[in-house]
């Protein structure tokens, strides 16, 4: 008898787009609900709304995916990240890597060619 760890999700495929939509929204709601706990657990110096915005941003990145198997894998990855975060298996650096664009000016792309040229990208 294998006892799964806390927050482990059984691997499954979505039957159709409506099923996938339900699973994605459930995963998104889990992240939103967990945002205050993440802030408290990892002692982040940002408001809870910033964590929720980042969750929204990561979900929006894949909004227009057209294939169901791809969506399944993305849902699985979201659940994996969720489990690793909530079980405190991650460390501060692993959580903060999602916020690099806000913190570090070198981790962003420039707005146009001239801005990039002035900052030294050839």
């Amino acid at each position, binding site marked *: 008898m294998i006892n799964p760890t806390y927050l482990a999700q059984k691997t499954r495929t979505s039957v159709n787009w409506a099923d996938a939509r339900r699973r994605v929204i459930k995963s998104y709601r889990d992240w939103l609900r967990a945002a205050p706990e993440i802030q408290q657990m990892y002692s982040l110096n940002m408001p809870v709304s910033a964590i929720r915005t980042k969750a929204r941003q990561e979900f929006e990145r894949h909004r227009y995916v057209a294939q169901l198997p791809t969506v399944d894998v993305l849902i699985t990855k979201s659940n994996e990240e969720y489990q690793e975060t909530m079980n405190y298996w991650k460390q501060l650096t692993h959580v903060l890597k999602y916020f690099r664009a806000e913190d570090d000016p070198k981790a962003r*792309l420039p707005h146009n060619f001239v801005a990039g040229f002035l900052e030294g990208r050839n």
Partner: protein
Amino acid sequence: MPLLPRPATARLLAAAVRPASRRLGPASARTYADEGAHDRSVQPDPKSSTSDAPSAKPGDSAMIRQQGPAEGAPRHKPDYDVAVDYRTSKFSPIPMRVMDGSEPGEAVAAAVLSGAPTELQARTVRIYRPAKTATQSGTWHGHHWRMDWDVLEKGHRWENPLMGWQSSADFMQGTHLNLNTKQDAIDFANKQGYEYFVQEPNERRIVPKAYANNFLHSPKRLKHIRTK
């Protein structure tokens, strides 16, 4: 992409014409659609199709132009608004487009799922057949196809200040991928979202020769006298 305000009409864009799905190069070489030329591993029939995706549905009028002229133009220039991931640095080149899974076709979008840095989709890849070594050992090593990454504009090499060793910010430098056929390499580049160009090999031209042809009779004046 997620940072731009999206009007409601943007959600009606068909997957095939959405700017993120535009690619460089001839369209026939850049789609995932099975061209029927060769049989890849057999996969079960998909139970849902890309037309069920949350995008434009049939019934939307084809007469109404749903994208502005800027969005319909082909992308030759770097896209500065593309979504960055946590590995972007000041050495990262600017991509033309980053695959976001909305491209039509049946293949799984490995660029979206693999977790590879998005800056890899900015770098051009050369697909070629390495030349045969100039010895007489045979052509054993001249049949496979290799994928090679172009050098970064900045950060591919500098001198370490302490010891003078060569340091690099390019994680793909010195990496080769060996594949069996040209189509395999092109499919891989398409799947991963790499910009690629194919360099055709210089085929060796073997002229069949016979020594006896030097002594054949010719009724006309000999252009070149091969015997004395």
